[in-house]
C-alpha cells in the first residue's frame, strides 16, 4: 500500500468523517488520494488557521455526544503549517483534542532550506501534546493511531504529524501488517490515571461535611468528561453552590438555584464574593488560571482546597491543595454523588449571605438591560444577549469570539444545554468563532448554532464566510459592532486615562460583505428591533447575519483588575 492510502485508512479507522484543510505542494499526494477515495467530507478553509479552528469545533462540540470525534485538519509544508500554529496553540491551552497532518518536504532534502520547508516539529513541540515525523511508510498507520489515542486520552490536546512528501508516496511491501482493531498503544511513559484513590474520596467527604461555606468550582474538565449530571447530583446532595470557569459554563443549566454563574476577572458578584469568603473550594477539572484567581498571593489564603484534576502537573501549580485527587472528574463526581456519607447541610447563613451578594448589583443591571442603550445612545451588548437567551430559551449552541461580547455572553446567556458554549479561553484567540462555528455545526447538525463576533475578531477570519457559503453551513452570525476593539478600549478607559491607542476601527460595509457571500443580512440599531431580528435569524434556513450597532462606552462589569485580588473587584463604575 501507498503512504497516502495508509493515512486515509488510519483516519477512517478512527472514525473521521470531516477533514478541514488547505492544499499545497507537500500535501498534494494526500489530497489526491482523498479526491480518489472520497471517504471524507472535505471542507476547504480559506486560511489554514480556519481549518484548525474548524477541527476544534468538531472536537469541542462532539465531546458530549454519543460519538465524540477528534477534529482533523491538514495543511501543506512551510507557510501552510505555520498558518496552523495559532489554532494549534489555542487547542493546547484549551485542552482540545485535534489532529493536524502537515505535508513536509521530502526527507532527502529536509534541513537544506528547501522550498517551503520549515521545521514544523521544532515549532510545534512546545505547542502540542505530541508531534511526529514518520520516516518510513510503515510507521504511518501506527503513528496516526497513537496520535488519536494521545490527543483524546486524559486531558485533551493537539497532536501534529508532519509527513515528508516522499514518505507519503512510498509503498510498503506485502509483509506489512497493522491490525487497527487490536491496536494498543505502546506508550510506557503516557500517564493516565482516571481512577480516584478511595481513601482520598473519604477524606474529601469528611472535609465537605465539615465545611460551613463551601463552593464548587466547575471547570472545563467537567464538560470534557461529561460529568454535568453527576455534578448537579453531588451539588444538590451536599448543598453546595457552584461557580463556573469560562469553559465550565454549560456543564449544567446556569440558572440552577445553586449556580452562582462565572467566577473570575469578569465573573458575577456573587461568584467572586463567594470565593472571597469561602472556607472550602471543591474544584473539578480546572487549573486555577490567573483569570480565575487574580493575585495568587491573596487567593484562597487559609482556605481548604480539594482539587480534582486529570493532569497531575496542574495540581499544586498555582494553588496549594489540601486534598489532591488526580483522577477523571466524572468518576470522582459519580462516587461523590452517591456517597451515603455526604451530609445535606442547610448552611443557612452561607446561603443567606450568597443571596445578599446576588442582590448587590442585580437591579442596576436589570435597569440597564431594560433601557437597552448606553451613554452614546447605541445598543448594549447585555441587552442583545438577554434577548438572544429569550429567543433560544438558552438551548442553542453559542460560539463566541474574544472580547467584551464574549464576557457578556458568559455573564448573561442562559445556558441550558450541556456543552453548548464554545470559545477560546486559555489563549483568547480573536477570530476563532467564525471557523469554530463551522465545526460545531457539522458536529451537531440538529442544533441551532450562533456565532457571536465583535467587529474586530470577525475581520480576523472573515474569509471563512467563503467556507460557510460553499458548504451551506447554517450558522447565525451575530456581529456586535461597537466600532472598537472593545475589550482593549475598556482597559484604556479604566487604566490608560482613556487614550484609545490602536482600538478605533474604520469598518467596511458589513451588509455588502454578507451580500457578497450570499448571506442574508439585517442591521439592528434600536432596542425594539432586537427581538424581531433574532427571531428572523433563528427561523431562517441557512446562514444569516445580523449586525448590531453597539455602544462603545459599555464596560464589562464586574471586573477584577489584572493582577489585583478578587477583593479589588470593581462592581460599578460609579462606586466611589
Amino acid at each position, binding site marked *: 500500500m501507498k503512504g497516502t492510502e495508509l493515512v486515509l485508512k488510519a483516519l477512517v479507522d478512527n472514525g473521521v468523517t470531516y477533514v478541514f484543510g488547505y492544499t499545497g505542494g507537500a500535501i498534494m499526494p494526500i489530497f489526491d488520494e482523498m479526491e480518489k477515495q472520497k471517504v471524507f467530507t472535505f471542507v476547504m478553509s480559506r486560511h489554514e488557521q480556519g481549518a484548525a479552528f474548524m477541527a476544534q469545533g468538531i472536537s469541542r462540540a462532539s465531546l458530549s455526544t454519543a460519538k465524540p470525534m477528534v477534529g482533523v485538519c491538514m495543511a501543506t509544508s512551510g507557510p501552510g503549517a505555520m498558518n496552523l500554529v495559532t489554532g494549534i496553540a489555542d487547542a493546547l491551552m484549551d485542552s482540545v483534542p485535534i489532529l493536524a497532518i502537515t505535508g513536509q518536504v521530502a526527507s532527502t532534502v529536509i534541513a537544506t532550506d528547501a522550498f517551503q520547508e520549515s521545521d514544523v*516539529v521544532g515549532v510545534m*513541540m*512546545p505547542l502540542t*501534546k505530541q508531534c511526529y515525523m514518520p520516516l518510513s511508510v510503515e510507521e504511518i498507520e501506527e503513528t496516526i493511531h497513537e496520535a488519536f489515542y494521545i490527543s483524546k486520552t486524559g486531558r485533551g490536546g493537539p497532536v501534529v504529524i508532519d509527513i515528508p512528501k516522499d514518505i507519503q508516496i512510498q509503498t510498503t511491501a506485502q509483509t506489512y501488517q497493522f491490525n487497527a482493531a487490536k491496536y494498543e498503544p505502546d506508550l*510506557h*511513559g*503516557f*500517564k493516565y490515571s482516571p481512577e480516584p484513590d478511595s481513601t482520598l474520596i473519604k477524606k474529601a467527604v469528611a472535609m465537605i461535611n465539615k465545611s460551613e461555606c463551601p463552593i464548587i468550582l466547575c471547570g472545563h474538565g467537567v464538560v470534557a468528561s461529561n460529568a454535568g449530571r453527576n455534578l448537579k447530583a453531588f451539588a444538590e446532595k451536599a448543598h453546595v453552590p457552584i461557580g463556573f470557569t469560562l469553559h465550565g459554563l454549560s456543564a449544567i443549566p446556569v440558572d440552577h438555584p445553586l449556580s452562582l454563574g462565572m467566577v473570575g476577572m469578569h465573573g458575577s458578584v456573587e461568584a467572586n464574593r463567594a470565593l472571597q469568603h469561602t472556607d472550602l473550594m471543591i474544584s473539578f477539572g480546572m487549573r486555577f488560571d490567573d483569570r480565575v484567581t487574580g493575585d495568587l498571593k491573596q487567593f484562597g489564603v487559609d482556605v481548604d482546597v480539594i482539587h480534582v484534576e486529570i493532569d*497531575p*502537573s496542574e495540581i499544586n501549580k498555582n494553588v496549594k491543595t489540601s486534598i489532591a485527587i488526580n483522577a477523571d472528574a466524572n468518576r470522582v463526581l459519580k462516587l461523590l454523588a452517591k456517597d451515603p456519607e455526604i451530609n445535606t447541610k442547610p448552611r443557612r447563613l452561607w446561603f443567606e449571605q450568597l443571596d445578599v451578594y446576588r442582590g448587590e448589583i442585580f437591579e442596576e443591571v436589570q435597569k440597564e438591560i431594560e433601557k437597552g442603550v448606553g451613554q452614546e445612545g447605541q445598543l448594549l451588548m447585555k441587552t442583545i444577549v438577554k434577548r438572544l437567551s429569550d429567543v433560544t430559551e438558552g438551548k442553542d449552541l453559542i460560539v463566541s469570539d474574544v472580547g467584551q461580547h464574549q464576557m457578556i455572553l458568559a455573564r448573561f446567556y442562559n445556558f441550558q444545554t450541556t456543552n453548548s458554549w464554545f470559545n477560546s479561553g486559555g489563549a483568547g484567540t480573536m477570530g476563532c468563532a467564525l471557523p469554530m462555528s463551522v465545526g460545531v455545526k457539522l458536529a451537531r447538525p440538529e442544533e441551532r448554532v450562533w456565532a457571536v463576533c465583535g467587529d474586530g475578531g470577525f475581520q480576523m477570519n472573515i474569509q471563512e464566510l467563503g467556507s460557510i457559503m460553499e458548504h451551506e453551513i447554517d450558522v447565525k452570525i451575530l456581529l456586535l459592532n461597537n466600532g472598537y476593539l472593545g475589550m482593549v478600549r475598556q482597559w484604556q478607559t479604566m487604566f490608560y486615562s482613556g487614550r484609545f491607542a490602536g482600538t478605533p476601527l474604520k469598518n467596511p460595509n458589513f451588509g455588502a460583505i454578507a451580500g457578497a457571500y450570499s448571506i442574508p443580512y439585517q442591521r439592528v440599531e434600536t432596542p425594539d428591533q432586537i427581538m424581531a431580528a433574532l427571531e428572523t435569524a433563528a427561523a431562517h434556513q441557512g446562514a444569516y447575519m445580523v449586525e448590531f450597532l453597539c455602544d462603545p462606552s459599555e464596560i464589562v462589569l464586574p471586573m477584577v483588575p489584572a493582577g489585583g485580588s478578587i477583593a479589588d473587584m470593581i462592581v460599578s463604575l460609579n462606586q466611589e
Partner: protein
Amino acid sequence: MTTITSRKRRAIMVYVADRPGVLNKISMLIRRKMYNVESITACAARQSGYSRISLTLHEDNNDNLQQVILQIEKMTEVISARELDINESFWREVALVKFEASQIQFEQFNKKYSFETLDQQNHGVHIVQLAGISKMIDDFLLDLGDDKIIEVARSGFTALDR
C-alpha cells in the same frame, strides 16, 4: 531566574523512551520555566530503547522544583522523573584540562590530584583527565590558575543514587 549560584543545586533524573527530540523537549521546558540548565547529560539506559538523563539546575523552593518534575513527567516519552537527593547520591564529573606547566609543577599537581595523563608531546603542555566530584575539579583549576590553563572541557554531572 537566571542562575544565581547561591540557590541550591538540585539534580533531576529522568528515564525516557528513545524517541527523537526528547532531550530537546526537556531543555525547552526548562528554558520556558526560566532556569539555566547547569548541566544535562544523557546516556543509554541498561534496558534498550530507553535513555537516562541527569540534569542540574538551581532552585531553593521545593514546590517549584516539583512543578518542573511534574511537567517533565507529563511528556509522553518520559517514563519517570524524580529528584536525586544530594545526600543520598553520587555526583561525578569528568574534566579534560590542557595546561602549561614546568615538569616540577606538573608532578606536584599530579601528586595532589592524581589525574591521568593523556598527552605530553608538546613541550611543557599537558593534557590530563580528572574524574571525581566537581569540587575537586574546581580546586584543581583554581590551583592551576588562569595563567596556566589553555583549555578545559567538562562533561557535566552524572549521578547515581544509593
